[in-house]
């Protein structure tokens, strides 16, 4: 429309500069935008295809389930290229690694709900994002249009930094961020990692040694500048310093050795490790491996992209294991959009999406019953009397019922067509 208006203005001679102004539009800034631009430029700007694709992307964010920090889901690909999204709890200092593997490439992006924080390269099928604050990261995956099959999304939250003491881990942390110091006069602005004297202290990330000094409180200290994240790492109470100012180091390079210099003379040897970026930060999320166990893969991901029905009345949940919030009747037809561990992501005939236990559903291969109307019955496209009629179930001709929705039965006719008949007067 914008182009048409500009062309019209130009044609009318209203402004000679209009065409010049319209000549240049910034190139797409990410793969999603490039894809949309390709469709628009090909004359599909007002097509249902593109409208559905864009709408689905927005809807996915609005209903994104909260998941763990180590999550996997097998997701169905449909013709509309429907998007799915997940809300992942994150803390500053953590990074989120997302991988999508499957029969088609998938667009990946991440946002905080309003601002996009990262994109994946579709061909690579991976994305890595480092949020700058605590909260939720919304990861979204969307296949291109007219695809079929399924893909598997793996979301993993990892620390951004390596552990700063060689061969030690979070179990060796003896004092945490915020502990009182000097009788409560100040807070502890780091973590203390206890290790034998002389244990190597290593670079937690690539960076530049910005200061090597001796202070009354920290004793022998080293400051490492992490320019990529605009933060400074502080290593204190060292027994010895093995680097010099300005030296470039890589993750794992030895900076010094654990000791108890400075005001730690009366304590066992340990490293005081601090992170400063517009003030002190809690180092734990920066170095702590995520404790969530990886989501098991579903026992039968073959259900993804198929239809099942509710085996006994249940409630739809907004996320795997979340609080039930929408009741569903026995026999309801469900389209399986995804599967994770023992949960299925399903869509009901009225368009609700949520999670149910796989064990609460059953195959629709076997009919529930048979309907045999004594008068011609209209077969509707959806379980509603106002839905279009797509066929007629003739009086005396029975049809197997595979699912139910209120007073409607989902039937398959002899010619293979499927639809809904009202059963109040069917039998």
């Amino acid at each position, binding site marked *: 429309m914008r182009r048409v208006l500009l062309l019209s203005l130009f044609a009318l001679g209203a402004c000679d500069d209009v065409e010049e102004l319209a000549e240049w539009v910034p190139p797409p800034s990410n793969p999603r935008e490039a894809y949309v631009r390709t469709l628009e*430029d090909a*004359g*599909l700007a007002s*097509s249902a295809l593109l409208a*559905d694709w864009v709408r689905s992307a927005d809807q996915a964010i609005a209903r994104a389930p909260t998941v763990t920090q180590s999550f996997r889901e097998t997701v169905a690909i449909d013709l509309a290229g429907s998007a799915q999204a997940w809300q992942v709890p994150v803390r500053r200092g953590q990074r989120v690694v997302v991988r999508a593997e499957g029969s088609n490439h998938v667009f990946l992006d991440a946002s905080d709900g309003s601002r996009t924080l990262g994109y994946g390269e579709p061909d690579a099928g991976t994305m890595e994002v480092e949020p700058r604050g605590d909260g939720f990261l919304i990861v979204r995956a969307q296949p291109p249009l007219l695809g079929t099959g399924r893909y598997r999304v793996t979301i993993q939250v990892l620390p951004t930094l390596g552990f700063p003491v060689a061969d030690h881990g979070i179990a060796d942390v003896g004092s945490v961020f915020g502990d009182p110091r000097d009788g409560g006069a100040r807070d502890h602005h780091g973590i203390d990692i206890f290790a034998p004297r002389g244990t190597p202290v290593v670079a937690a990330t690539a960076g530049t040694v910005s200061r090597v000094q001796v202070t009354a409180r920290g004793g022998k200290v080293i400051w490492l500048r992490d320019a990529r994240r605009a933060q400074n790492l502080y290593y204190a109470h060292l027994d010895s310093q093995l680097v010099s100012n300005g030296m470039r180091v890589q993750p794992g390079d030895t900076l010094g050795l654990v000791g108890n210099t400075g005001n730690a003379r009366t304590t066992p040897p340990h490293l005081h490790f601090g992170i400063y970026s517009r003030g002190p930060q809690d180092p734990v999320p920066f170095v702590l491996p995520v404790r969530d166990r990886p989501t098991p893969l579903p026992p039968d991901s073959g259900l993804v992209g198929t239809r099942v029905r509710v085996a006994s009345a249940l409630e739809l949940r907004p996320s795997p294991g979340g609080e039930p919030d929408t009741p569903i009747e026995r026999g309801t037809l469900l389209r399986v959009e995804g599967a994770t561990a023992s949960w299925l992501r399903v869509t009901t005939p009225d368009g609700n999406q949520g999670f149910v236990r796989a064990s609460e559903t059953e195959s629709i291969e076997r009919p529930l019953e048979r309907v045999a109307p004594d008068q011609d019955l209209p077969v509707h*496209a959806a379980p509603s009397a106002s839905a279009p009629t797509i066929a007629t179930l003739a009086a005396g001709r029975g049809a197997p019922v595979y699912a139910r929705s209120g007073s409607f039965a989902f039937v398959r006719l002899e010619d293979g067509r499927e639809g809904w008949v009202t059963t109040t007067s069917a039998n």
Partner: protein
Amino acid sequence: MRPRRTGRMLPDPTANRLRWAAVALICVVAGGSGCDVLASSRDPIDPEHATYVDGLRETGLADAPAGRAWIRAAETALLEAGSGTLPLHAEGWIAADSAAAVAWRFPAPQERWLTVRAALAGARPGRLFVEVYRLPSDPADAPVPLASALAMDTVLSFRVRGRDDLVLRLQPELLRGGTWSVDVTAADDEPAHAGVR
């Protein structure tokens, strides 16, 4: 394929698009007097369907099984159009996830006004390609598009010239379906709302 561009340029206004825009402009200018430009078999128009198919091909969507099936359904409907007589009324159902098109072949109502009213009603709003073709007397020649629209609800009206049979084809755009209905009539006088709406 169009050449790749680093930035987005205004689309090249192709001859076909300009011609179609000119037709639309003439219809608007002509106002209540109607528009019979589309009736000229010497000046075939470029139907929206062909533009849409070009778009599918340009983006690779025509190579996907669903895209291929949709294009094939359109071609088959045109080639295997069922016989129809005027006035013609029909309605039916096309599922959104199916590749289907319907078409009728009928004798040309020479020098009369042909009016096609077609609509698509579905669970989700969708547009219907409505096209009228002239079938050349030589079966080896391709059908010639005479009038075309893409809308949920369309009225096409034009004076028919020539004696070749006509074909009317309906096809919902990809991923859309629903109940379609069509009425085709011929009249000696120009209808009140002639033209392309």
